[in-house]
Structures are given as C-alpha cells and as structure tokens.
C-alpha cells in the first residue's frame, strides 16, 4: 500500500510542478528551462522556516510559495522582453544559479549534503486536495481573460499586441503565478520527503516537465495532467525491465512525439465535455 501511496503522492507533486511549466511554456509559449528552480525556492524557504524558526506548516507553505513567486518576479522582469530562445537560456541559468547559491550557503541550507530533519506534514490526502485546488486555479486562469490573452500571444505576439494586449505584463503575471504554483509543489515535496538536496532541482527535472507537457498535448491542461500521471508512473510499471526501463520510456516518448505531433490531447480539454451544454444554455438565455 505504501508503495502505491508513495507513487500517487509523488505523482501529485509532479502534477503541481508541471502546472507551472504548462502555464509558462504550454499556455504562454515562453520556454521555461529552469522551472524546477522555483520548486527548490519554495521547498527550501518553507523547510528552513519550519526547521530554524518553528514556523507552522501552513504559514511556511504560504511564505514558501510567495518566495518562489518573488524569485519569479526577479527572473521574469528582465526576461519577458527577450526572445523565446533567450528566455530558455535565462531560466536555465537561473536554475544553475539557484543550485550554486544553495550549495554555497551550507550553514543555512546544508549545502550539497542536503537539509535533513524536515518534519513530515504532507500525506496523500493533502497532496490530492492540493492537486484539485491548484488545478482549479490554473484551469480558471486558462479560462479567463488572462488565459485567452496568453494563448493569443503564444500564437502571434505581434497580433496580440495590436489587440491592445500588454504582452510583457501578461507574461510577467503568468510567470509569477506559475512560480508560485511550482513553489508550492516544492513545499509539498519538502514536507513529504523530509529531505532536500540542491542537486535534485537541476535542469533535467525541468526538461522532464517540458517532456510531460508536450507529450500531453500542444496546449491542453488536461493532457499535461494525464501525461504527468502516465509518464511518472510508467517507469514504475517498467521496473521489471530494470535498466532498460528508461530506454523503453524514451522510446515511448519518441513514438508519441513522432506519431501524435500535437501530443496525446492536442488542445482538447476535458471541460469541453460539459462546456457544450453551457454554450447552448448561454445561447438560449
């Protein structure tokens, strides 16, 4: 049972982290290559508050997410004007910089040896509830004027500007929101694993999240979530294959990218199932 629980818990945490990548890269088309760094910020800040100052979990979680958002602001402000390729470089560099800061502040963070003794405050129900809440927030965001403008700027930035969309501000708002959500994933992770190390948050995790988002669908939150579940649990099903499992995993990802060029779900959202009805109702009203 614990085995299944641990998979579900960690999958849930990954889902929340992936929501951040989805917002920045899927929804807005900005290439986030250091999203995991925000997870590190959220995790470390909250864990250190709890460890060193005895801050209660709820407050630590709040401050952790806020700190992630703040670091999102720091990275976002100068980068939103840059071209997409450069944003990938800057976010990547930010990720490496955060790791180097964590490694260098060993008195505070434990450095490379990691931060131990974080109290266990997170269990499966909390993670599941968090997934639902975060998903609700992100879905509402996508479904609001913000989401529409994001999609607009993703497809055509110039045309979006000529519709009066303040593209830079919009990117920044989305970036902040995404950082906060990813930061919260870090909080959950810290208080579940009870251990943090800087090396865990390197660019390969951010790259994994990108893979998840795009395997899920070119622009589908539903797809990103389904793909997060599949791609994080797939390696577990492949355990029998031992060292070959990563290879099988890669092949499956390649097959999907090659043969479903818009990802599994394209831009389909599960909400369309009931949205049809509301449109009809709206039409009658």
């Amino acid at each position, binding site marked *: 049972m614990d085995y299944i629980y641990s998979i579900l818990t960690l999958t849930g945490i990954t889902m929340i982290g992936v929501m951040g990548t989805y917002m920045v890269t899927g929804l807005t088309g900005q290439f986030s290559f250091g999203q995991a760094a925000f997870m590190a910020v959220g995790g470390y800040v909250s864990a250190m508050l709890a460890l060193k100052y005895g801050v209660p979990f709820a407050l630590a979680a709040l401050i952790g997410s806020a700190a992630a958002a703040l670091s999102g602001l720091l990275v976002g402000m100068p980068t939103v004007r840059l071209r997409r390729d450069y944003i990938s470089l800057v976010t990547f560099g930010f990720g490496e910089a955060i790791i180097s800061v964590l490694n260098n502040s060993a008195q505070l963070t434990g450095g490379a040896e990691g931060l131990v003794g974080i109290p266990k405050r997170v269990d499966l129900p909390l993670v599941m509830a968090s997934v639902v809440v975060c998903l609700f927030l992100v879905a509402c965001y996508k479904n*609001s004027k913000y989401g529409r403008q994001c999609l607009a700027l993703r*497809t055509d930035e*110039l045309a979006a500007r000529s519709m009066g969309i303040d593209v830079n501000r919009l990117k920044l708002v989305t970036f902040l929101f995404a950082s906060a959500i990813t930061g919260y994933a870090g909080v959950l992770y810290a208080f579940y694993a009870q251990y943090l190390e800087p090396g865990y948050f390197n660019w390969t995790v951010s790259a994994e999240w990108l893979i998840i988002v795009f395997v899920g669908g070119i622009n589908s939150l539903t797809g990103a979530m389904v793909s997060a579940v599949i791609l994080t649990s797939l390696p577990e099903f492949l355990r029998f294959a031992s060292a070959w499992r990563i290879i099988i995993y890669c092949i499956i990802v390649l097959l999907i990218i090659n043969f479903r060029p818009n990802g599994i779900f394209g831009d389909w959202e599960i909400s369309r199932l009931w949205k049809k009805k509301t449109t009809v109702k709206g039409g009658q009203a």
Partner: protein
Amino acid sequence: MSTTTTRGLLEVSGLSKAFGGVHAVDDFSFAAKPGEIVGIIGPNGAGKTTVFNLVTGVYAADRGSVLLDGVSLCGRRQDQIAREGIGRTFQNIRLFKGLNVLENVMTASDPTAPYGFFSAILSLPAKRGSDRQEAKKGREYLSLVGLSGLEDARPESLPYGMQRKLELARALAIGPKVILLDEPAAGLNPSEVREFIDLVQRLHERFNFTIVFIEHRMEVVMNLSHKLFVLSFGKLLASGEPLEVRHNPEVIEAYIGEED
C-alpha cells in the same frame, strides 16, 4: 455597443523609417478626418505596410509624428496605441490559432475587461459576469460581419473570406476610433469582394469610425475611399480625390513601371 463618436482624427506627418540603408518610408504625411475613409495605394514594396506598422507602434519611426485626435502616439507601445483606439487587420491574416472564433474576438476586449487576477483564478462572480458580457458583445460583432453560429469553430478551419471577416470583427471589438485595413480584399473572389465592400460600408455607417486601408484592387479603392494617398518608394507621390488620383499621369507611370 460602443458607438464611436466623431472623434478619430489621424494626422501623420513627416514619417520616415529606414531599414539598413533602405528608406522604406521617407517623409510621408497624410491625414484622415474623423469618419473619413482613406486609401493608401502604391506599387509593391512602396512602404505601405511599413506606414501601418509605424502608426501602430510595431516599429519606432526614425522621424515624424503620428497624432490621434491631437495626441501624439510616438514612443507609445503597440498595445497602448491599440487601446488609444487604433484597430488593425493584417495583410497575411493573423488569427489566434489556439482559440476559437468567439475567443479570438474576445481577446480584443480582454485587455480592458474589468476584473483582476484573483477574480480570474477563483472564477468569482465579477469574472463570470464580465466574461458573459464580453462573449455577448463578441457574438454581436460576429453577427455584424456575418459569422453567427461559428463561435466554436477553429479559425484555421474557416474559408479564407471568413477569416478576413473574423479579423475585421476582432479589430472592431477593441472599439476603435480609427481602423487600419491592410489589403483586406486580397485573396477574395469577385463576389466576395463586392460583399466585403458592402460590409465595410455598413460597418462604417454604423460606427462612423475613420478607416485607412491599403489596397491594390481598384474596385475596392474606387468604391470605398473618400481620399487617396499614393506611395512610391516610401515617398508620397500624389493625393486627392480617387478619380483625380486615378488619372494622375505620375501614378499611372508608377504602376506601369512596376509591371515592367
């Protein structure tokens, strides 16, 4: 529905822009009075689209000024200019592929939708009310251009002519004082062109905004414009009443020269 008043005075003077060593637009001036329909014509590569891009803030002008109702637009960002009341369409249609038809129109009113971030992520009543309002307006714009019933369609699935109309509806939705149409009839068949001319005239009657358009098709130019400006190699070649310009020998030469 926002009925635009008689405002919409667009004055462009001494506009210049060079790319590298090429003077794409060179000391170009024109004006459009409120409610006027102005055409800009000229051979390919004359710098017409660049003029639009300078007016809407895509590029910063090297020299010259753009005034809307006496207020300078120079140095303003593209989105600010749009919100001052300049709407536009594009030569090569630029719709938002990730959004459906209705949402495409809504993006134009979204920047001014009266709700904030927290209303959005919590889907508060303020947000839902505003979205409903926006959608309602959007549907009206769509029905104005004759796209009713296609709200849920994907823009890329529409035929070319309808995409043009959708782009027009989207430009209307920002509530413009001045609307810039970049070769709106390109790629349309003759019957669509006639329909399009009617549509623009109808919209103009209804909203009474200022229209500036770039066009090659003489049918459109002659039927729509109150005034014409001819651009050649970035410079103003001639201007005046359509008929007067049409018979201007320099203009004819510029066009014939192009055909060679």
